[in-house]
């Protein structure tokens, strides 16, 4: 597609369940980023991939959060044993190259933990 695609758009889970969020970046984009956006706040960095290599995961809030991009295209963000504080919008962005490049965002997955 022309833009970054994320699915599902909405996800409701009970506390303790595992969830998986998917990101399809713009075709050919080398860099892929995951951000978390709380209500009324700006996005906050979670993790970064260059092709299939996860080069930075310093923003992941706990070891319950795991991301992968095995073939250097589609990425999945997995959250295990979800907690209420995980409720947020999870945004994926991609850029053509690394460094000083515009990052193009998807519309996010709104995750609600009950």
């Amino acid at each position, binding site marked *: 597609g022309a833009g970054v695609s994320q699915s599902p758009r909405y996800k409701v889970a009970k506390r303790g369940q595992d969830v998986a969020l998917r990101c399809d970046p713009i075709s050919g984009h080398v860099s892929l*980023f995951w951000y978390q956006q709380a209500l009324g706040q*700006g996005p906050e*960095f979670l993790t970064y991939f260059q092709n299939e290599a996860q*080069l930075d995961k310093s923003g992941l809030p706990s070891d319950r959060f795991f991301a992968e991009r095995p073939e250097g295209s589609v990425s999945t963000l997995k959250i295990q044993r979800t907690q209420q504080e995980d409720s947020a919008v999870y945004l994926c962005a991609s850029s053509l190259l*690394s*460094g*000083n490049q515009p990052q193009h*965002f*998807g519309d*996010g997955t709104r995750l609600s933990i009950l």
Partner: protein
Amino acid sequence: GESVGLHLPTLSVQEGDNSIINCAYSNSASDYFIWYKQESGKGPQFIIDIRSNMDKRQGQRVTVLLNKTVKHLSLQIAATQPGDSAVYFCAGMNYGGSQGNLIFGKGTKLSVKP
């Protein structure tokens, strides 16, 4: 580290007027900045970017000004239209990680009155 913040959380303007949204940053090592527009339920949409070797850049109806001396940037929107109503974020590139992720401010909500 880097922090990017906005001076005003809300801005209300009359249709046809010019809008100015301000942003301050703390890390003098940041050399790349982006302005994003985010509408309700959507991801951030790229508006314009600027590198630190420039102090001004113009796009269609938008101008970004960068003042490195006081670590300040602004977004000017000419002839503001109702469709410009959204939350606007400035973001600065952070080089604390391996390839640079964006650090966002909290956002300014722009409301355009017809």
